[in-house]
């Protein structure tokens, strides 16, 4: 009789243990190979990724992290490889993606593991801003974890250029103030706008920042959801500003990439550069510029509006080492790792409950705005909850707009893209 009873107890305990398995795996339990597929291959990106990997390995001594990475094309090269692996059923444990359209693509193909219970058991839904969680959620299920969030509408301002032109831009930038300063800079032979748009996304990002400045957070969301037409007056004004700003850009902007523009800003040969805050790392590390001394920053329009450019990782549904993948995901969201990663990458930690005092001045401000401000997704970087094809249509429309300056054609293209996708 005792034997049967103990057997039952054993079974009950095992069942209970199994029931708690998903999301409650003890940190030391994960072992084996975990393949992490990303497009972070060099410099600050790979250093930041390494901070996650070493944290995951120290929390899971038996884990072997395979760092598979393919650079280039803002992740398009990696997507190329990923597509073949998905088609072949050979999924890595984790891979990098953007919240929004790209993530949705994977969800639709049914290749992602559901992380909802993990979020709940770890309490992440409480500390991650709700718009961000929403961008990772489809049909009520959460599919991804964010490593950090960059701000896509920061305007970096060259101190040397301001000194030479006698201007004082910073904080909230109204168009009239910017225009006045631009004309002063131009008079001194400084290109008011730093732009490096050999890759069109930099110009697309600039236009996005200007549209957001005119339309505000609610207006932007309405544009993305199709509720508002892109022929709206606010967009028209933003396009007019964009066309005007292009006349103030450095003459070789079409032949420079974004780092060339940042370099020019650091040298003071041009005035301002609207760029995501990965430029912060570029300024500090490569250009050896000093925050506050060599450059300051501002925002077009409401400084409380934070355009999010997040990087996230997903778990392959049929990947071999699910436990290992989950352990890695936990490492990503670990508060210490969030800070270590942010320090190296230049992004803001996605958790609002971490202590940002050890981050740089700019980063502390950005993290604060992320936690307390209005968060909207970047269309340029495919973060919005629209199909990836819409982001592509936006880039193509900006390419044409730069050449033909036609706001009506732009509006038509975007309305069509949103309606048909």
């Amino acid at each position, binding site marked *: 009789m005792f034997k049967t009873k103990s057997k039952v107890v054993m079974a009950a305990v095992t069942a209970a243990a199994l029931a708690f398995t998903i999301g409650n795996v003890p940190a030391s339990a994960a072992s084996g190979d975990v393949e992490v*597929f990303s*497009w*972070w*291959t*060099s*410099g*600050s*990106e*790979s250093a930041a990724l390494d901070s996650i990997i070493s944290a995951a390995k120290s929390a899971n001594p038996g884990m072997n992290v*395979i*760092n*598979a*990475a*393919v*650079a*280039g*094309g*803002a*992740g398009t*090269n990696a997507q*190329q*490889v990923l*597509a*073949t*692996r998905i*088609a*072949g*059923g*050979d999924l*890595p444990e984790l891979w990098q993606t953007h919240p929004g359209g790209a993530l949705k693509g994977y969800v639709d193909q049914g290749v992602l593991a559901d992380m909802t219970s993990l979020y709940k058991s770890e309490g992440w839904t409480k500390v991650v801003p709700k718009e961000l969680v929403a961008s990772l959620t489809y049909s009520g299920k959460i599919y991804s974890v964010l490593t950090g969030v960059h701000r896509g509408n920061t305007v970096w301002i060259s101190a040397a250029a301001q000194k030479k032109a006698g201007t004082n831009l910073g904080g909230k930038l109204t168009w009239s103030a910017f225009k006045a300063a631009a004309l002063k800079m131009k008079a001194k032979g400084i290109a008011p706008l730093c732009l490096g748009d050999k890759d069109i996304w930099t110009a697309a990002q600039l236009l996005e920042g200007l549209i957001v400045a005119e339309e505000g957070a609610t207006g932007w969301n309405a544009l993305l959801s199709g509720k508002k037409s892109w022929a709206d007056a606010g967009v028209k004004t933003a396009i007019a500003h964009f066309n005007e700003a292009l006349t103030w850009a450095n003459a070789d902007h079409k*032949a*420079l*990439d974004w*780092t*060339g523009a940042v*370099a*020019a800003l650091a*040298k003071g040969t041009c005035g301002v550069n609207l760029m995501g805050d*990965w430029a912060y*790392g*570029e300024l500090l590390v*490569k*250009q*050896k510029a000093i925050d506050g001394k060599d450059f300051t920053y501002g925002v077009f329009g409401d400084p409380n509006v934070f355009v999010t450019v997040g990087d996230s990782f997903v778990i392959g549904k049929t990947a071999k080492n699910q436990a290992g993948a989950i352990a890695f995901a936990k490492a990503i969201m670990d508060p210490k790792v969030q800070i270590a990663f942010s320090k190296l990458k230049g992004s803001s930690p996605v958790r609002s409950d971490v202590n940002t005092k050890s981050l740089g001045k700019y980063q502390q401000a950005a993290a604060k705005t992320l936690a307390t401000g209005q968060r909207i997704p970047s269309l340029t970087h495919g973060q919005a909850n629209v199909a990836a094809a819409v982001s592509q249509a936006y880039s193509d429309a900006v390419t044409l707009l730069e050449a033909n300056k036609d706001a009506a054609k732009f509006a038509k293209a975007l309305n069509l893209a949103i309606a048909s996708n």
Partner: protein
Amino acid sequence: MSIDTTQPVRVKASKSLQARFGARSRRVQFILLCILVPIFVMPFYVMIMAAFKTPQFADVTTMWLPPSPFSIDGISEAWTKLAPNFLNSFLIVIPSVALSSALGSFNGYLLSKFTFRFSNVMFTMMLVGMFIPYQSILIPLVKFLQITQLYGTIPGLVFVHVIYGIPITTLIFRNFYVGIPKEIVEAASIDGAGILKTFFSVIIPVSIPGFVVAGIFQFTNIWNDFLFGIVTISNSALQPVTVALNNLAGTQTVNWNVLMAGALIAAVPTAVAYLGLGRYFVEGLTAGSVK
């Protein structure tokens, strides 16, 4: 007419050269070539300068200036990141070049010296199909490799390169062999040699320029291949050097000094291959084959 296929006699090059062009036109040509040399070398100058600069100064605005400060960080970092993949590239390139050239020369021989009914159609079909952008056939290709267990392996990548190299090597050799008098082949078959024996004893000895250009083309093509490399092999330990070179660039930030240094380092084997193959651009290889 007797055929001596054992030893091609090398006619003294100088005699024919002098007869072809006077010394004066040669001098003019020499001067023109010398003018072109700096134009061709200019990009290399920029690359070498950039390779020895620090990341901050390896930049478009200072491209002409010599490095100051001088730094070998670019070279050492590039070498560290590229060296592990060099062996892979050799393991991939050498069999691929050898196999695709061998098959190409054999196919070229068949297509140029024999007249069977569909030879023209087959040849054209082999050539036209390769005009499709390879990005669109990646997925069925990978599926095939997975089914045949070749996925993720270096032999698998060699297989891919050989298949996609056959049309062009066949073209190179076939159009090269049409210049060889058919009498040679017919004489050999009169002597009783079959297709294969004729190929090895008559065709191969005079194919050297063909192998040189096929070798140059295939070595370059396969060594610099990126697309098949990343898609066929996901294990970075087995990937070719081009993939590692691409990854030097990073996705957001680029250290140009490292990338330029890496590009120069990655080009060395190919450059050496050119030097080795270029020696065979010698005249008179087909001399004496028909007396």
